[in-house]
């Protein structure tokens, strides 16, 4: 190992910021809190940049201990099983590092403006920094257990931030739902970890992968690596909101918009993709597990996209869009194109983060309204927001040359090389994606403004901390919120260019290049076929945009007619295919009922409480009977004594008798 890069600084700096804001923030001024929050997350970003700067000078993969101190880094030593607080740097973690710190820092800046009016300002920044700490731990860990700590920690931060407005019931429930559904995934993750420990004796990446490397791919389908792969995937489904554990993400929109941008678009939900990519050595030797990953990803991409068509809340559309795009990433991983998945992860962080921040800007502008039907015509009122969101929409729709085009096209190309069905479904989902994103754009920014004009303080309370603004008409956001939008728009434009000529793939090749099984038909098509496919993707995206234009700008009466003609099918899609209701009936209700009837009334009341009460009652009854012995009557005392004495004598005689 070469000289230390002091990687530990990167997670610990935000932790320090969280501690300072958390403990001292209550009495501090907003400026002080902002400075602390921005300083520490910014410092983490700067340090990440410096690590990137020195990247070529270290040998990879680079591992180092916490504080470069063996004693301090020592965590678990149990026989031959050791786990340390140690960090791991290679191209993959560098990409994740830059994305997390970079986008995270931009969102911190944005939050200064967005949350300025909120009474719990300090708590927000404390939680946000705390999230950064856990996410960076997750990304930089050199073993599964430390990664799992980060994993759980971001789940905790997500719960805290979703339920940030603690007085709102729906927010609290959403936070609970997120955490519980995550936990279900974590159960699978843990069992996967146990299997790894049992069979490979370690959780350290290098050691595990060294042991897995020589194993042959499991062709029969079932086997140890397949089991581990599927279990890890279950964990990823929970964290990255795939079928069937995606239900928490739309509800997570209860949190403030910067939270949605950071956690539920750019970083936390991508942890699953990162984990699967990091474990590619295992997955490549378990084709069945890879197929499961691909199928789940593909289905989710399509499924969530269809729901996105009908939603009217601007943030919910973006939430389902996130689920769908994550499906793309898993599709990529499932066909063995891990670098394509990571590429899409990076570009998605840019444009989805931008979309959410832009949506926050829109919501801020219209005084808290989130229903798109009450918006419209905003492009003249908030031009900067409109411009950046337009760029983001182009990016997510996959239109050349914006970022999303390069990454999505890469995925579709690799998917086609594996199985054309993946490609077809991906294409359909891309069409739908483009459609609903442009629908969002048109409904929000085109046409006339349907919003209610309000005078000062006339607006009913909405929980985005904008009460003090007198909203006469929609107004642009302050500069502190616009600058991150502009920077992200820039990245959404040029961010995909690193993928030209498989540049990104080559960058990540040292990580993934270890003989993937599914890359059998590498570059099967010629360069010409690739260009053809690119054109098909762009055409499909433009078709979606055109359809949205027709339905929402030229003939705005059409959507209602179509919805009516589809009748109950439309309602089913609108109600998210009733998945939440199905889960509630199948799982939640029996669990709650069982808990109430069996555990609470049965065990807690009857068995535990009643046993104690009965013991007390029994003692009372027994003593009630026995107290009659003390009658004050001398002769009864004498009688008892005589009887007792007779027993004792008899016993003594019996003892002393010779047999």
């Amino acid at each position: 190992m070469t000289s230390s890069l002091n990687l530990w600084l990167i997670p610990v700096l935000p932790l320090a910021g969280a501690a300072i804001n958390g403990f001292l923030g209550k009495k501090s001024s907003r400026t002080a809190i902002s400075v602390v929050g921005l300083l520490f997350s910014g410092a983490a970003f700067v340090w990440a940049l410096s690590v990137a700067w020195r990247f070529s000078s270290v040998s990879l993969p680079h591992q180092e201990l916490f504080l470069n101190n063996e004693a301090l880094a020592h965590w678990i030593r149990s026989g031959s099983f050791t786990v340390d607080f140690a960090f791991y740097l290679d191209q993959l973690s560098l990409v994740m590092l830059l994305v997390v710190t970079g986008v995270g820092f931009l969102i911190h800046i944005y939050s200064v403006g967005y949350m300025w009016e909120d009474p719990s300002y300090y708590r927000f920044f404390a939680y946000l920094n705390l999230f950064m700490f856990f996410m960076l731990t997750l990304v930089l860990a050199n073993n599964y257990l430390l990664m799992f700590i980060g994993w759980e920690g971001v789940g905790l931060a997500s719960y805290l931030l979703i339920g940030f407005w603690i007085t709102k019931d729906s927010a609290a429930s959403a936070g609970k739902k997120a955490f519980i559904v995550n936990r279900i995934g974590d159960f699978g993750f843990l069992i996967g970890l146990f299997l790894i420990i049992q069979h490979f004796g370690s959780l350290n990446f290098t050691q595990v992968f060294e042991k897995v490397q020589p194993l042959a791919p499991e062709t029969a389908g079932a086997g140890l690596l397949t089991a581990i792969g599927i279990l890890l995937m279950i964990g990823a489904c929970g964290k990255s909101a795939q079928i069937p554990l995606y239900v928490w993400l739309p509800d997570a929109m209860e949190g403030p918009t910067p939270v949605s941008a950071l956690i539920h678009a750019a970083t936390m939900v991508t942890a699953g993709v990162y984990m699967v990519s990091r474990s590619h050595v295992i997955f490549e030797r378990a084709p069945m597990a890879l197929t499961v990953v691909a199928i789940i990803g593909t289905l989710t991409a399509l499924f969530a996209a269809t729901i996105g068509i009908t939603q009217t809340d601007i943030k919910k559309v973006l939430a389902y869009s996130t689920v769908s795009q994550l499906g793309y990433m898993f599709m990529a991983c499932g066909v063995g194109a891990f670098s394509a998945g990571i590429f899409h992860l990076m570009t998605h962080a840019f444009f989805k983060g931008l979309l959410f921040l832009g949506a926050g800007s829109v919501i801020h502008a219209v005084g808290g309204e989130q229903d798109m039907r009450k918006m419209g015509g905003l492009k003249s009122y908030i031009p900067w927001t409109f411009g950046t969101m337009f760029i983001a929409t182009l990016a997510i729709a996959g239109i050349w040359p914006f970022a999303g085009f390069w990454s999505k096209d890469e995925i579709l190309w690799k998917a086609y090389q594996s199985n054309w069905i993946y490609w077809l479904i991906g294409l359909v989902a891309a069409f739908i994606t483009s459609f609903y994103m442009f629908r969002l754009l048109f409904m929000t920014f085109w046409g006339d403004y349907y919003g209610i004009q309000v005078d000062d303080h006339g607006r009913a309370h909405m929980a985005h901390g904008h009460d003090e603004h007198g909203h006469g008409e929609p107004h642009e956001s302050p500069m502190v919120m616009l600058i991150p939008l502009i920077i992200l728009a820039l990245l959404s434009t040029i961010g995909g260019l690193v993928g030209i000529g498989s540049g990104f793939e080559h960058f990540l090749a040292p990580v993934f290049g270890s003989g993937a099984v599914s890359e059998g038909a590498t570059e099967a098509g010629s360069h010409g076929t690739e260009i053809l496919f690119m054109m098909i993707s762009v055409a499909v995206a433009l078709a979606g945009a055109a359809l949205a234009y027709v339905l929402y700008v030229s003939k705005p009466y059409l959507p209602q007619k179509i919805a009516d003609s589809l009748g109950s099918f439309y309602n089913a899609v609108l109600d998210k295919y009733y998945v939440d209701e199905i889960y509630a009936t199948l799982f939640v209700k029996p669990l709650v009922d069982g808990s109430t009837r069996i555990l609470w009334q049965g065990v807690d009341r009857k068995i535990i409480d009643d046993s104690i009460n009965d013991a007390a009652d029994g003692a009372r009854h027994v003593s009630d009977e026995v107290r009659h012995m003390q009658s004050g009557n001398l002769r009864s005392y004498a009688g008892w004594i005589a009887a007792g004495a007779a027993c004792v004598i008899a016993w003594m005689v019996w003892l002393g008798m010779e047999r």
Partner: protein
Amino acid sequence: MSVHLILFLAFGAVAVAGAINLLAQTHPINSALSLIAVMAALAGEYLLLGAEFVAAVQVIVYAGAIMVLFVFVIMLLNAGVEERTKGSRVAVIFGVPGMLLGSLLVAWVVIRHSGTEAVAAGALPGDPKTIGDLLFHEFLLPFEITSILILIAIMGAVVLASKPPTAPPPIPAPRKVD
């Protein structure tokens, strides 16, 4: 049938008869007199065994002092025929049969195990000289302690049986402070 056995049975019969009579009589004075008869019979038994000193002490102390004390108290308290009151069921149901059973058991065991070893008449050297030797050499400490015990008993009896004090003296009026 030796004389020894006949005498034993005679004294024994008197003792048992006196004991049963104690139970049967209703007036305590009659019970007291039966008890005296029992003690006299037992003194005879002691003599048969050769414990002369013990026999003498039995008559002097037990029959002559303790029973006299009993009789005195009976007369003092004017104890009459005892009434039938509702007593304790436990005592009658458990106590008496229990004890009877116990005694029967003990008796049975004893008879089974002690066989026919006989005690000769006058087997013990029970003369005062021997007893005195024992008392003042081997058992000196218990002897002295029993004398203290008697002292305590006397004091206790005096205290317990004395008349209760009359009304407590009145609290003196508070003195004026000059």
